[in-house]
């Protein structure tokens, strides 16, 4: 019998590579390649017939600088992210800590399921329910405001309230996912650390500050990065919460992703839309790199 020249470990690795090639090919051809095509498309005036696409160079990028809706949607997107991500993290952590304190496992599972439910509810249904709850005339939210003597608010139609309102709906929807992440992170922290610290006389705040928070850092970084990307690409809830005036009222809820969609498929101006896509891609890449740099640190005890 001839012995294979490759060791067992090498052969296993080769098999692994072979299996990894399939998702790699998928990733390259279905995700990366079209992304680069957008770069190329952004240099042309769109036409359904590739032969009739006129090369315009950087014209679309110059057009972006003149387009007030670009500035507006960028500002809105930034606001969504700046309000939404921290809110999601803080609330998510708060609820996860409370749930973690529930010692009966069955009960904890029930709570977790309840908090997770909004995450798997279709955005259209969420939007419909919220537009009724937030209605100035019939909504339960305004009912509560009136009960405590505050004036009723037209949350989704007031141009200065619409964006924070949409953000709140998105946070509410994402919260379940965030809670599950933090809960998993909390349960991964070894009990001994807490016990050892307690013996040393640490109080609850110190435990949280010096054990829980640092050891949750990987989950925190992951959540911040994923949450930021999701908010930078915000689209579905914005569309559905103001369906016949998408991004309105008065462009106050318009996001970059929604604007790209409107330019591409409301106007069939895919060249310009591709240019905005490239801008959004660059922004997301930059912010993600900065975040990873600033937030990541290895904690070991």
């Amino acid at each position, binding site marked *: 019998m001839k012995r294979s020249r490759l060791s067992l470990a090498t052969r296993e690795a080769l098999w692994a590579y072979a299996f990894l090639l399939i998702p790699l090919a998928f990733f390259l051809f279905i995700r990366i390649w079209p992304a680069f095509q957008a770069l190329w498309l952004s240099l042309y005036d*769109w*036409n*359904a*017939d*590739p032969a*009739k696409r006129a090369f315009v160079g950087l014209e679309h990028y110059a057009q972006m600088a003149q387009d007030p809706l670009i500035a507006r949607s960028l500002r809105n997107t930034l606001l969504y992210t700046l309000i939404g991500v921290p809110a999601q993290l803080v609330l998510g952590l708060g609820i996860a800590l409370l749930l973690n304190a529930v010692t009966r496992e069955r009960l904890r599972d029930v709570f977790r399921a309840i908090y997770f439910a909004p995450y798997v509810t279709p955005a259209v249904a969420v939007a*419909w329910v919220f*537009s*009724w709850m*937030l*209605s*100035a*005339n*019939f909504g339960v939210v305004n009912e509560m405001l009136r009960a405590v003597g505050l*004036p*009723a608010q*037209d949350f*989704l*139609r*007031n*141009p200065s309230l619409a964006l924070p309102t949409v953000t709140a709906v998105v946070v509410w929807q994402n919260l379940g996912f965030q809670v599950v992440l933090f809960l998993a992170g909390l349960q991964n922290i070894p009990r001994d650390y807490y016990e050892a610290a307690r013996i040393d006389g640490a109080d609850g705040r110190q435990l949280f500050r010096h054990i829980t928070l640092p050891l949750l850092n990987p989950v925190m970084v992951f959540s911040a990065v994923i949450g930021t990307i999701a908010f930078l690409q915000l689209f579905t809830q914005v*569309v559905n919460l103001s*369906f*016949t*005036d998408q991004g*309105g*009222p*008065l*462009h106050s809820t318009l996001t970059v992703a929604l604007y790209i*969609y*409107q330019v*591409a*498929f*409301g*106007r*069939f*101006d*895919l060249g310009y839309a591709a240019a905005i896509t490239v801008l959004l891609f660059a922004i997301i890449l930059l912010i993600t790199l900065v975040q990873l740099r600033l937030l990541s640190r290895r904690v070991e005890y």
Partner: protein
Amino acid sequence: MLRSFVRARALWAGLLAFGLMSAQAQVTITYWQYDFKSKIEAIDELIKRFEAANPGIKVVHQTFPYDAYQQKVGSSIPAGQGPDVVNLFYGWLPTWVKAGYLVPLPENLVSPKQVDNDFVSMAQSAKMGGKYYGLPTAVRSLALFYNKDLFQQAGISKPPRTWAEFFEAGKKLTVKQGDRYTQIGYGISPDGQDHHLVREVLLRQMGGRPYSDDGRKVLFGGAEGLKAFTMYTDWVKKHGIGIPSFFPGNNGYRDGFIAGKIGMIIDGSFAIGTIRSGAKFNWGVAELPVEKVGGRKANFGSFWLHGITPLAKGPKLEASVKLLNFITSAEAQRYWLEKVGELPARKDLIKDPKLSLDPVYGPFILSLSYAKATPFVDEAAQRTVIVNAINRVLLQNMDPAQSWKIAVEEEQKILDSFYK
């Protein structure tokens, strides 16, 4: 030997030609529209009739949800995968033509003169540069829907004929408790049909017109335009006969009317079906009010048309035009009215007294003779211009004159960038 070779060749050639012929005889074309139950069923039936009359042609009918429709068309046609015949809103035509998604109808198969003669005048909005890019089966106009029961309770005997009567009625129909409305007179909806009402109806009734004849210059910035605009915003600001988003949701104004909480709405003939099946009270339809009795009438007309894409080539193009001619024929339009409830696009069909005297269809039919379809170049953007002009006044208390001036500038910019 040679002879038998020749004979064999001839036989082969014959077989080959026969094969080609039979392959050619069977053409498959694809028709696309968005999901709407009665329209899907109607097209299915029309295709069945068409295939029976044209044995060599097979039609594949595919539909998509409304929100994903343009996206689907936008990405499929460049990939060579999409429809040969496609249904689209007339307002999308300029952007679709500019981006190469439609081809002009071949003049030897569809005579432009004939279409000009046979179809209601608004169908000419399907023309660009003198060429037709599609034809409609049905057209729509606007009218006033009113709740007869609420009218009776408020002591109003008949639908308003003038705008003065309209807000008199509106005031009587509005019920407020504290800071809350429990019932409103008019279902105001800037992003529903009201932006059309301002641009195409009120403006023309005041004696203005929205654009220059070549469509390149915005003319609604004049005194008539501002008067029309202010009159509209006053319904909310001054007369308080309604508030936007009284009922939330995509078509809140219509939902509120169907729920019996709104006295009057202005809506398209396409809403007849929904209102008929939903409203559990006596309701009526009237022609839109005018400035004064005997004054100028105006209406906004619109339609969906069937266009032909660059994917239809050779025998497919011929088959596609055949299908297009069939689904816009008088027979198909009559069936469409019965099945979908939309008004026929052919002149001789709307002259039918049975239609113009119908209490529900009548007001819409009468309006068709003077309805105009706005010559949009970028429907989504132009609609936003008017909606925002209204919202600046209603939501931000901007002075109507200032807000209207912004709208005129924004609109002119859109026209300029299209015609540059």
